[in-house]
């Protein structure tokens, strides 16, 4: 039998999910599918639209497996908008004039951005925020203004809901000043109560986005130069704006359905029943265009649920729409916001538990039933870490006192572990229950989160449930007696910590010995640097000594940092960020002579970019002669000890933070570790050195030093936690010695101190017991190991310069050591060199007058 024909009007996220779900289950091939999309691209992740500003290509936003569109039963017609539905003839006609017959029709036309009828809304510079093209046009406009205006571009966003805040974040990311104008009393008023909205406003203000509430725009006025210039508000206020984004809400695109005579809801949208059928049994509607249970829902998760229901029904199933899960969690420029269930406490007799900490920008509220036992909903702003475990508990009794879920980390002994019932939903995007995840482990043999994701689709959309998925998987594996593999790579079945112990106890000194004794094969880019790092502290030797050279990543191998064009950057050590004028001049002279791009780093030193591999020894000879040594910016090792100026100069300083920072940096320089190590010392509680953002942070008190551990910046910023108080300098150093070596011995590869502290037996308390009370009886051993490190430290650049064998590694070409790499090309920018872009290279290749400085910048002999 020929397959029946399903025509899907619309090519958005829900359409994609429908096709995916149907092709997944329709193994007999009873349906062939044609998707008619108005946009000229494949379905993409509209929810992640803002990430397009952080440099992602439109292709990166594509959803699912591209193979879906190569399936012979699936046809995607792009850039062809459907203009007419003939329900009698069961055909649809598209703008191209083509007509398609259907056996079943699904309307997935979505919404459009609604622009309130406002004078000036049609001016150039007024944008909506819905499609990639909208976002690209906005970006182009802002970038053009930035180069024309020579001052920051002022952007205004009309609407303080989800989309408005996304748009404001996008403007902010583009470097524009963004102000959100919210008609209502507070931000995100559909999801948050007033307290949550206020907390969110403060957090958004802190990142530099302005917010005005009760701000109704009545007129958009043009600027003299053309385009938008100013907004007039209903209260007589005015807001200057060079660009305006209207994010006042969305409306269902139900015009086709209206023309076809299908039932339309009172506020628009195609009316469907719980099976997603319209009043025509051959026509369904899914996603934002569907008016289901009386309303259109502008969230993707319910849309996905409708797609699943429709796919099931098309194959003869009996699925019904389970009701919309309107739970929302998002991260906006680092601000966590979540809302779920009855967030406004509208249930009869509902009780509200509120924790508000305006100092740290946290607002949390749980809505409980009248007996304070059953969770009905909640609002989390500033810290939404409890979301993943709380949301699946909606409508269920929480164990114990619900207040523990609101208290900050470590404040109340932590929230109890929740044993989720099998039917509790974990991934709301893909409607996956705790039972399904457990089943993936127990019945389908999945042994890690990756396999469970592939098997169940849990966590594959927004990812906010992944911590919970991981916990469930690990618990289930442990129950089965399966230990989660911690093998380093295919060559070593041991974890890094096990290998460290094995190598140390066996007293091995080379990779060949290690791999022959404990591994297989010849290693790889994962285990070789790991073994090099282990040997660096168990059997210290120069990075380029003998076989060790072959283990190093290129950065460690040439003792510089590889940059995108294949050149390197050079960072001399500047302990504690303290540098003499002579030192600065020496660095400046080197940079000038070699044409290096110069930038101050976050670690209080100077990075010199654009050095060719063959220039590195020449540059370092000059730096070593001027008294500098390697800064190990290239290594998984101690980077810097950042400090404030301290009590010697500062009016408020209580201790000499610079002297301590210099002492610590010279003590731990060259110490190889599982990941980079950063330290900081502040001379008083004002914390100008940002020491709590470091792996080890020291803050002066009037009685000594407070020691914090486990902080970092980067992708997952963490504040270091207090390990010990009011230590003398001597005790402080002993504590840091032991902390660092305990970490180096037992952490996983590329695991920074924060996650390591969490995983150590007993967490921070466990670390404290080992470091401060020697609970494992290894303190003497750790102290001796650190003494050996301090004793044996040598500047690896100075040692390299003294060894002709090592210097041979820096030849540009083995057969032409004098010829510089001809592929390097630079152009001037703001008075310095930067790598030429591919376009600039191509233009130079065509002989067009593009300023490409040669790869050999003049060197003074």
């Amino acid at each position, binding site marked *: 039998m020929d397959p029946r024909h399903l025509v899907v009007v619309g090519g958005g996220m829900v359409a994609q999910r429908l096709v995916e779900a149907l092709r997944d289950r329709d193994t007999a091939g009873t349906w062939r599918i044609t998707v008619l999309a108005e946009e000229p691209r494949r379905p993409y992740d509209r929810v992640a639209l803002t990430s397009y500003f952080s440099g992602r290509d439109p292709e990166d936003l594509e959803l699912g497996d591209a193979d879906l569109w190569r399936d012979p039963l699936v046809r995607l017609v792009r850039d062809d908008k459907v203009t007419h539905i003939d329900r009698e003839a069961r055909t649809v006609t598209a703008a191209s004039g083509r007509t398609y017959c259907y056996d079943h029709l699904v309307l997935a036309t979505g919404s459009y951005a609604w622009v309130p009828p406002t004078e000036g809304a049609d001016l150039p510079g007024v944008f909506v925020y819905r499609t990639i093209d909208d976002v690209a046009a906005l970006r182009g406009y802002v970038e053009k203004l930035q180069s024309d205006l020579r001052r920051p571009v002022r952007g205004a966003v009309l609407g303080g809901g989800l989309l408005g805040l996304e748009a404001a974040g996008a403007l902010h990311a583009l470097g524009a000043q963004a102000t959100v104008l919210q008609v209502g009393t507070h931000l995100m008023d559909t999801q948050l109560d007033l307290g949550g909205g206020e907390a969110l406003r403060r957090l958004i203000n802190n990142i530099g986005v302005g917010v005005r509430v009760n701000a109704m725009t009545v007129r958009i006025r043009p600027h003299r130069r053309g385009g938008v210039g100013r907004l007039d508000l209903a209260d007589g206020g005015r807001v200057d704006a060079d660009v305006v984004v209207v994010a006042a809400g969305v409306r269902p695109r139900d015009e086709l359905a209206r023309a076809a005579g299908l039932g339309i809801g009172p506020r628009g949208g195609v009316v469907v029943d719980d099976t997603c059928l319209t009043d025509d049994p051959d026509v369904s509607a899914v996603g934002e265009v569907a008016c289901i249970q009386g309303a259109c829902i502008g969230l993707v998760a319910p849309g996905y649920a409708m797609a699943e229901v429709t796919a099931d029904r098309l194959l003869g199933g009996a699925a019904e729409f389970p009701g919309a899960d309107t739970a929302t969690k998002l991260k906006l420029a680092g601000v966590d916001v979540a809302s779920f269930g009855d967030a406004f406490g509208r249930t009869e007799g509902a009780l509200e538990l509120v924790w508000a900490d305006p100092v740290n920008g946290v607002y949390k509220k749980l809505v409980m039933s009248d007996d304070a036992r059953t969770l009905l909903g909640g609002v989390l702003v500033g810290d939404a870490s409890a979301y993943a475990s709380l949301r699946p508990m909606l409508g269920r009794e929480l164990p114990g006192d619900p207040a523990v879920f609101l208290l900050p980390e470590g404040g109340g002994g932590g929230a109890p572990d929740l044993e989720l019932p099998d039917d509790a939903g974990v991934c709301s995007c893909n409607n996956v229950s705790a039972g399904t995840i457990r089943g993936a482990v127990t019945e389908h043999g999945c042994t890690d989160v990756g396999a469970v994701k592939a098997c169940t689709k849990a966590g594959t959309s927004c990812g906010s449930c992944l911590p919970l998925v991981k916990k469930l998987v690990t618990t289930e594996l442990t129950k089965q007696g399966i230990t989660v593999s911690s093998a380093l790579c*295919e*060559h070593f079945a041991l974890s890094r910590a096990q290998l460290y112990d094995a190598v140390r106890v066996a007293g091995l000194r080379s990779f060949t010995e290690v791999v022959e004794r404990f591994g297989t*094969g*010849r*290693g*790889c*880019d994962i*285990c*070789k*640097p790991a073994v090099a790092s282990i040997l660096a502290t168990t059997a210290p030797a120069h990075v380029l000594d003998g*076989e060790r*050279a*072959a*283990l*190093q*990543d*290129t950065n460690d*191998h*040439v003792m510089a940092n*590889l940059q*995108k*064009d*294949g050149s390197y950057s050079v960072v001399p050590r500047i302990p504690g960020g303290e540098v003499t004028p002579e030192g600065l001049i020496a660095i400046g002279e080197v940079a000038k002579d070699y044409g290096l791009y110069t930038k101050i780093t976050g670690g209080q030193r100077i990075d010199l970019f654009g050095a060719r*591999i063959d220039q590195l020894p020449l540059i370092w000879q000059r730096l070593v002669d001027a008294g500098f040594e390697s800064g190990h910016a290239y290594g998984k090792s101690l980077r810097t000890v950042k400090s404030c100026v301290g009590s010697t100069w500062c009016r408020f300083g209580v201790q000499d933070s610079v002297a301590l920072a210099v002492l610590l940096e010279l003590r731990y320089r060259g110490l190889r570790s599982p990941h980079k190590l950063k330290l900081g010392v502040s001379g008083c509680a004002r914390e100008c050195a940002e020491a709590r953002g470091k792996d080890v942070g020291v803050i002066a008190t009037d009685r000594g030093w407070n020691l914090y551990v486990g902080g970092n910046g980067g992708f997952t910023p963490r504040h270091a936690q207090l390990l010990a108080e009011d230590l003398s300098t001597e005790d402080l150093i002993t504590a840091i010695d032991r902390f660092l070596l305990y970490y180096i011995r037992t952490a996983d590869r590329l695991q920074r101190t924060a996650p390591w502290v969490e995983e150590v037996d007993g967490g921070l308390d466990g670390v404290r017991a080992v470091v401060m009370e020697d609970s494992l009886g290894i303190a003497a051993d750790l102290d001796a190991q650190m003494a050996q490190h301090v004793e044996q430290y040598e500047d690896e650049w100075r040692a390299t310069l003294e060894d002709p064998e090592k210097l*041979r*590694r820096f*030849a*540009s*070409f*083995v*057969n*032409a050591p004098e*010829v510089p*790499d*001809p*592929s390097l090309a630079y152009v001037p920018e703001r008075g310095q060199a930067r790598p030429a872009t*591919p376009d600039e290279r191509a233009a130079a290749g065509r002989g067009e007058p593009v300023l490409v400085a040669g790869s050999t910048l003049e060197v003074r002999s």
Partner: protein
Amino acid sequence: MTVLDTQKTTWTAVCRVDDLAPERGAAALLDGQQVALFRLVDGRVLAVDQHDPYSDAYVMSRGIVGSRTVDGVEVATVASPMYKQVFDLVTGVCLDAAGKTPVAGASGDLTVWPVRVSDGVVEVGTP
């Protein structure tokens, strides 16, 4: 993998085997073309493009040499120092794209250059 007609191959002496450190690459310049040479622990010398198709930089000789089991067979590999794609050193085939795509116009694999060692001298063949 590029198959060369050995009849027409011209061999160019590049360096001595001893100039190459075991399991560490070296770049060579052959008539303007950049080649990455690798000497393995078993004594073999292999050559692939110095150009990394995933980063568009000339850096392959600076990658870490290792091995990987492919269909039960251990093959010699090099990992790009830039974004860590892993290539088979014998065939040039990319074994692990590390989730990236090659730069526009580049194949995801490396071209392989024939190498022979005579009298301790490494020679690279060009068609």
